[in-house]
């Protein structure tokens, strides 16, 4: 399947770069889907359902729940496709933002905050990052994101990983790391900024 994401080293640029042919193709499919084109939507599904499912599974760790979230997200994409604005970013980013929101809402409704903190485990805080890093797709742009994530100090990396992949709120992250909540918020912001700079510099 040509999933539109490409495989070459320069296939998916970070934000700010020109879109690749694959990205533009999904953007165009989604724009057509917004006009009611079901066939175009099937193309959007085939391209984006695998990363949506990958993210949902990463957060929920349950195949059936991840499939339910994937279904909800893809139907929401169809329903609200008219809100997609290609000039504000790639379709894939828009869809993954929706998917992350849904996955996090779901994990918070089915796994209590305490249990989510515990499942990361005080001695095991590095595990979420390690397992993601192991399973990351063998694509250059993804390797680059994870190289950048790995280059962040642990202080900046952990809050990002615990919030994004474990669905913890900043207060729960603060609790897990026994660090003041305000400090965690500030680290989340700095961590994302550093990550962005690193990815954009292409190093």
């Amino acid at each position, binding site marked *: 399947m040509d999933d539109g994401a490409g495989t070459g080293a320069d296939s998916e640029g970070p934000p700010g770069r020109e879109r690749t042919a694959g990205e533009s193709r999904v953007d165009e499919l989604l724009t057509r889907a917004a006009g009611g084109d079901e066939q175009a939507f*099937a193309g959007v599904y085939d391209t984006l359902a695998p990363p949506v499912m990958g993210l949902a599974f990463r957060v929920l760790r349950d195949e059936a729940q991840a499939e339910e979230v994937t279904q909800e997200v893809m139907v929401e994409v169809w329903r609200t496709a008219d809100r997609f604005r290609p000039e504000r970013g790639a379709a894939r980013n828009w869809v993954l933002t929706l998917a992350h929101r849904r996955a996090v809402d779901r994990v918070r409704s089915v796994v209590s905050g305490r249990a989510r903190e515990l499942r990361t485990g005080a001695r095991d805080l590095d595990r979420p990052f390690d397992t993601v890093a192991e399973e990351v797709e063998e694509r250059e742009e993804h390797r680059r994101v994870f190289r950048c994530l790995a280059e962040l100090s642990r202080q900046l990396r952990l809050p990002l990983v615990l919030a994004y992949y474990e669905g913890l709120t900043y207060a729960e992250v603060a609790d897990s790391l026994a660090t003041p909540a305000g400090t965690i918020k500030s680290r989340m912001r700095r961590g994302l900024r550093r990550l962005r700079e690193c990815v954009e510099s292409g190093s």
Partner: protein
Amino acid sequence: MTVGGGDPHDDVGAYTLHALPPDEEAAFENHLASCAACREEAAGLAATAAMLGAAEHRTPSPEVRRRVLAQIGTVRQERHGERGGEDAGEAVRAARRARRGKRVLGFALAASVAAAAAFGGIAWWQHSEADTAREQVHEANAGAEALAGVLAAPDATISTARLADGATAGVVTSRAKGEAAFIASGLPRLSGAKVYELWYEEGGAYRAAGLLPGAGGELAHVLEGPLDGATAVGITVEPAGGSRQPTTTPLGVIALPA
């Protein structure tokens, strides 16, 4: 919007990671309404966060594809200008950009105007900026239309009620447009990770019709999904993220005219 002081702008990181509880998220969105630099930063960081999300691919079973493609045949797509509450916020943001220096909160303003339209003359609408606000919302052309569209529909009818928690609520219904807007004033702030959820009631069954932030206060929201044959609109308190079916006794069920 920040616990224990600190820079409120630091919330942008937690916001992007979906790591703010619903009340702080709503507060930060209000802040975004008045902070162009914050909106720009949030958009940039969201693109970075999405890259973290794109790392793993996992193919769902073919059954999921089949269900999704079957479902979209029955799901009505939103069209530009038919959107819900968040776009009312966007419209007010646009209006605010056009008029410098007005210190009003975007969403609260839209809600106030909508509430004024719905409750006309009710005493709580005594805001000195009422006229300015009306004018601003009138000027804004994008999302406020969703709300205004329902409010201004020729067949719009208004049903009001007092909720169990003392809040005032109303539903503006347009059968011709197949839409309804929910408007409330004085909704209490919910504690913990809870939100308000709206429901369409039809033949004794409830259909989820959208979430409202647990921060409460004055709210206006175009209900999600088609009005169809709904005979009432209900509101309940639900865990963050909402529920598929109500899990608490409704604070109120407002009957709609046929």
